[in-house]
């Protein structure tokens, strides 16, 4: 335990030092508070608006997690179907890779128009699109990443396709899959919040940030950003936790207790 504390000590020191420096700099340099509020103002805004922020955070989180689930399910379903058939893979992968390279977030207003600007479904669809492509592409890569020798070994056992899938392809795909969903977890909150910038339920983090900023209530905007950051980090940590349980054997996990 003390080893953990010592490991994280420099990071904690930098964090506290950074906050203090911010506070002191804003006061000492007389930076106008509406441009960059000091951390103490943001903390005050967090406390006074806590009920609103909790409710808004819940709305945004629901959109992010809902969209994540849709995108993940779709990405996995298409990946498994595609990985199985080389022809489908050859036909679909170039489009998937191209789609993954375009700024999907630009579709946010379109999704708002299609699925209703105030409906959480429109935000979920933006998130689902953002999540779908990295999950699908990486899972296909992972499922087809098993080396030739592993497949020949299974062939020498006269193993069925299903056995090869469950015993070789899926375990080989896990590192690729987790790389994708770590990216997707972050993307899902970005998608939900940016989707809200273009309109949505009033009590949502994206709306609070946009409206607070337009009324120059920057401390309040910052407090919503803090909640969004906390949600993003929390989501990411949950995925890392699942990753450690799912593949303790992986090189990146070795030597951890």
């Amino acid at each position, binding site marked *: 335990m003390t080893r953990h504390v010592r490991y994280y000590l420099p990071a904690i020191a930098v964090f506290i030092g950074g906050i203090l420096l911010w506070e002191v700099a804003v006061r000492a340099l007389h930076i106008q508070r509406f441009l960059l509020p000091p951390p103490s103002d943001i903390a005050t805004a967090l406390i006074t608006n806590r009920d609103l922020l909790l409710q808004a955070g819940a709305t945004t989180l629901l959109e992010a997690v809902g969209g994540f689930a849709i995108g993940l399910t779709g990405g996995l379903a298409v990946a498994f179907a595609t990985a199985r058939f080389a022809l489908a893979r050859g036909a679909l992968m170039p489009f998937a890779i191209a789609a993954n390279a375009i700024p999907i977030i630009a579709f946010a207003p379109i999704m708002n128009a299609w699925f209703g600007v105030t409906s959480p479904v429109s935000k979920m669809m933006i998130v689902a699109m953002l999540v779908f492509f990295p999950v699908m592409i990486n899972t296909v890569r992972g499922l087809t990443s098993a*080396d030739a*020798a*592993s497949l*020949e*070994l*299974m*062939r*020498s*056992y*006269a*193993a069925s396709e299903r*056995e090869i899938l469950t*015993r*070789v392809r899926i*375990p080989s795909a*896990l590192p690729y899959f987790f790389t994708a969903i770590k990216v997707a977890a972050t993307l899902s909150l970005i998608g939900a919040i940016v989707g809200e910038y273009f309109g949505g339920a009033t009590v949502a983090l994206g709306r609070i940030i946009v409206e607070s900023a337009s009324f120059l209530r920057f401390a309040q905007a910052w407090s919503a950003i803090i909640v969004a950051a906390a949600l993003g980090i929390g989501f990411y940590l949950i995925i890392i936790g699942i990753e450690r349980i799912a*593949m303790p*054997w*992986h*090189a990146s996990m*070795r030597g951890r207790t």
Partner: protein
Amino acid sequence: MNNDVSAVVEVHELNKTFGNAGSETVALSGINLSIRPGELVSLIGPSGCGKSTLLRVIGDLTRPTSGTIEVNGKSATRARTDRDYGMVFQAPVLFDWRTIEANVGLPLEIIDMPKARRAQRIADMLALVELSDFARHHPWQLSGGMQQRAAIARALAFEPRLLLMDEPFGALDEMTRERMNTELLRIWEQTGTTIVFVTHSIPEAVFLSSRVVVMSARPGRITKIIEVDLPRPRSDETRTLDGYFELITEVREGLKSGHVAGTTS
């Protein structure tokens, strides 16, 4: 060569070419080989002589272009689906996500062996290769030689009638390789499994084999088959016998003459 039904492997006039017409490479040409039950036969030759290809044809990992191959009196494909083969490659090909015992048990899971019998079998195999203390370890925690022993335990787990080994000790240092050779002979004598062993090491081929099949490259064919009549059980002492050195010379000469014949043809 007439078809001897008691042969484990019977290869007749086998050819294998890679590539398309016009740019094809002849990997194997006119191969005839008969391997008797309980033999340990080495295939030796320079790289590109098709020794690995021949092993892969026997193991039904690739198909011959022409000629016939029978394993235990059946087609190679039938032998594979009957699980007559155990295979050991140059790399151990152990799965990192499985412990050593789970890796050894992999083929047993595939043949649906009941769990209790499987556990017993895994324990026996690990004892055979002297890895019992490492059952719960993961592959990366073991040295290269230990990983290859685990791969051998896995290959022998369902008591295959034929063990195919493709340069299994090629990546090991000389000392470990010699120890593994002795180990392999002990395992072979205990199990009575027929072994086909691909190597490019002359001492290894002579030390292990009942017969050494010398091959030459371009096109890959058999130039000589040398009977190794060194006494068994073989040990480090075997490596000091006059007969051992004579056989090493004989294999070396065989490889050289094959090389000359290969370049002049």
